């Protein structure tokens, strides 16, 4: 029998047992749907993170902070004020601050182009628009991390200029702003502690109002964000006379063409620092996305495993039901090989149908992207689910193969049928 004839007959046989075919295919479809959706989520998640992280600056950047972990050999003896590692900021508690010495140490490392210090500041109160004083956290925007905004606009690479401040949207009500737009260009007054137990204030112009972060993986911190330049100035005011500068972190830029990881290793070797490259941060977030995706795909694979038994069962029943048909075809000279092909192609059709059902359902879910975006409060136009059409095609073909393999035993039973027995009518 010609292959096309076998395929056509297989298709017709399935159409004649519609309910059974559809139910069996649906079982596979559930697994296919889960896998296709997992792939879409992984795809969307990765490309979304790419867009977020690529906004978060240079892949040549290494974030260096003091080492957190307790070193058994660490020098625990009390130190005199003014000594290298003395706490300098009013807030300094257990975490060591980075020092100018650290800075020059790192700057001297081969391959380092630039070391930008990040200043830690501590605010006592914030007020605006004649409001009451509120507690608030002020943070320096030291890297190019994207900030999601409801109003206003930042400079290129998400830069905040000296004198500017980004208002957390949760303060709008407290400050008596009707909406984010009206808050723009208004002044926020921040009270800081100075080095002598007193306070000083500084005024900032609201350049933008933030929003909940677009990434469902990110936590939202209601921080006021100011420029690193302002941070430096404030840190200076908060530092006791004669004390060396202290930094919250360094943003180290590796020289163009130098391996960032090598530079990072050199920094780690240079002292008790912890260092992380942007590439690593990106990788660690990507890993989370991948884990979610593979987890989901695992469930899909389980569903498909279960549906294999459905295919085997369906095909066995089909062979039993069609004993006479098979007997007749064999009596008419149909080859064993062709009989077995007929049943295997039927199984392949079921696998194909199941795969297509699953992929189409997954595609329909991706049409809900705007809804998902809304639910997560993401930037509109963000697509967290992106169909991977090539992989979907591979999935469908794979399911056809799995179905064919599942149909092996039933098809062998059909091929082995004795036509005389099959055509016995008594």
């Amino acid at each position, binding site marked *: 029998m010609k292959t096309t004839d076998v395929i056509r007959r297989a298709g*017709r046989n399935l159409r*004649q047992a519609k309910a059974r075919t559809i139910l069996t295919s649906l079982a596979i479809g559930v697994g296919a749907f889960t896998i296709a959706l997992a792939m879409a989520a992984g795809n969307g998640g990765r490309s979304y993170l790419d867009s977020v992280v690529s906004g978060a600056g240079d892949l040549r950047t290494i974030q260096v902070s003091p080492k957190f972990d307790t070193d058994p050999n660490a020098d625990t003896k009390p130190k005199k004020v003014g000594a290298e590692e003395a706490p300098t900021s009013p807030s300094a508690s257990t975490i060591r601050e980075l020092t100018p010495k650290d800075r020059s140490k790192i700057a001297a490392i081969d391959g380092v182009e630039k070391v930008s210090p990040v200043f830690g500041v501590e605010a006592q109160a914030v007020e605006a628009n004649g409001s009451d004083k509120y507690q608030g956290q002020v943070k320096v925007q030291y890297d190019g991390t994207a900030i999601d905004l409801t109003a206003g606009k930042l400079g290129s690479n998400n830069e905040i200029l000296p004198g500017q401040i980004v208002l957390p949207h949760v303060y709008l009500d407290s400050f008596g702003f009707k909406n984010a737009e009206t808050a723009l260009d208004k002044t926020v007054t921040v009270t800081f502690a100075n080095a002598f137990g007193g306070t000083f204030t500084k005024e900032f112009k609201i350049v933008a109002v933030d929003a909940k972060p677009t990434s469902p993986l990110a936590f939202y911190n209601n921080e006021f964000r100011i420029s690193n330049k302002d941070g430096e100035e404030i840190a200076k005011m908060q530092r006791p006379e004669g004390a060396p500068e202290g930094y919250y972190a360094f943003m180290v830029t590796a020289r163009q063409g130098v391996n960032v990881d090598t530079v990072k290793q050199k920094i780690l070797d240079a002292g008790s620092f912890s260092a992380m490259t942007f590439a690593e941060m990106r990788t660690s977030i990507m890993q989370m996305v991948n884990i979610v995706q593979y987890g989901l795909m695992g469930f899909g694979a389980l569903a498909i495993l279960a549906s294999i038994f459905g295919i085997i069962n369906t095909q066995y029943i089909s062979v039993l039901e069609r004993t006479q048909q098979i007997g007749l*075809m064999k009596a*008419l*000279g149909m080859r064993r090989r062709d009989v077995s092909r007929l049943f295997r192609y039927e199984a392949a059709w079921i696998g194909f149908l199941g795969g297509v059902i699953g992929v189409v359902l997954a595609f329909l879910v991706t049409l809900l992207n705007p809804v998902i975006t809304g639910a997560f409060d993401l930037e509109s136009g963000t697509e967290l689910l992106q169909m991977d059409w090539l992989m979907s095609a591979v999935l469908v073909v794979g399911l056809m193969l799995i179905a064919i393999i599942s149909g092996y035993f039933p098809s062998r039973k059909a091929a082995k049928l004795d036509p*005389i027995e099959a055509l016995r009518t008594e």
Partner: protein
Amino acid sequence: MIEVKNVTKTYGKKQNAFRALDDVSFTIPDGASVAILGKSGSGKSTLMHAMSGLDRPETGEVLVDGVDILKLKSKAVDTFRSKKIGFIFQSFFVQANESVYDNVSLPLEIAKAPKRARRGKVMKALEAVELDEKVRSKARNLSGGQKQRLAIARAIVNEPRIIFADEPTGNLDSVTGQRVEELLFGYNKEKGVTLVIVTHDEDLSTRCDIVITVKDGRVESISENGTKKSVVAKEGGRA
């Protein structure tokens, strides 16, 4: 020409062994119409299966045009059946869910006939049994007589050399049965195709050129053109 030589078919093993065919021999010339006549359970169907390459009796030879089909490889036997044999069964065995057209086209597909040639052959076969108007109907919607005519169309579509019909009128009333008989004998005369009819109906057997009477798995007699020759006598008083 079909030559059956000393064919023995045993069902079961040892004590339960049962000889459904016992040393059967006869010859059928090309183009003859032959009735295999006998009571139910006498071994007619078993004999037909052996002659048509459906079954392989353990001893004996079945020579069709000089070739022993019992010694052929299974692939060659399949090809032999699909190219040279047409089958008609008592219970029709049409594929109820398929259209009349697809039922008739099945043997052509099995024989790998080129697609272009199929349609003409199918329509010709359907015209021969006067079912051409039903070509698009589902086989399940046909009456019993129409189903058997469909089975005849399926048997003749690939222009076989031999047609085996196992109780072709057994499930039909006499009028419809008559029509099926006419079709079979007409085709036999017109095309010179060998026709082997298995039947327990003596009236039907009288219409055949040769009547082979089977009893308890043995050939009891063979009559040609009405002149009865006793096989038993010819072989020297075995029974």
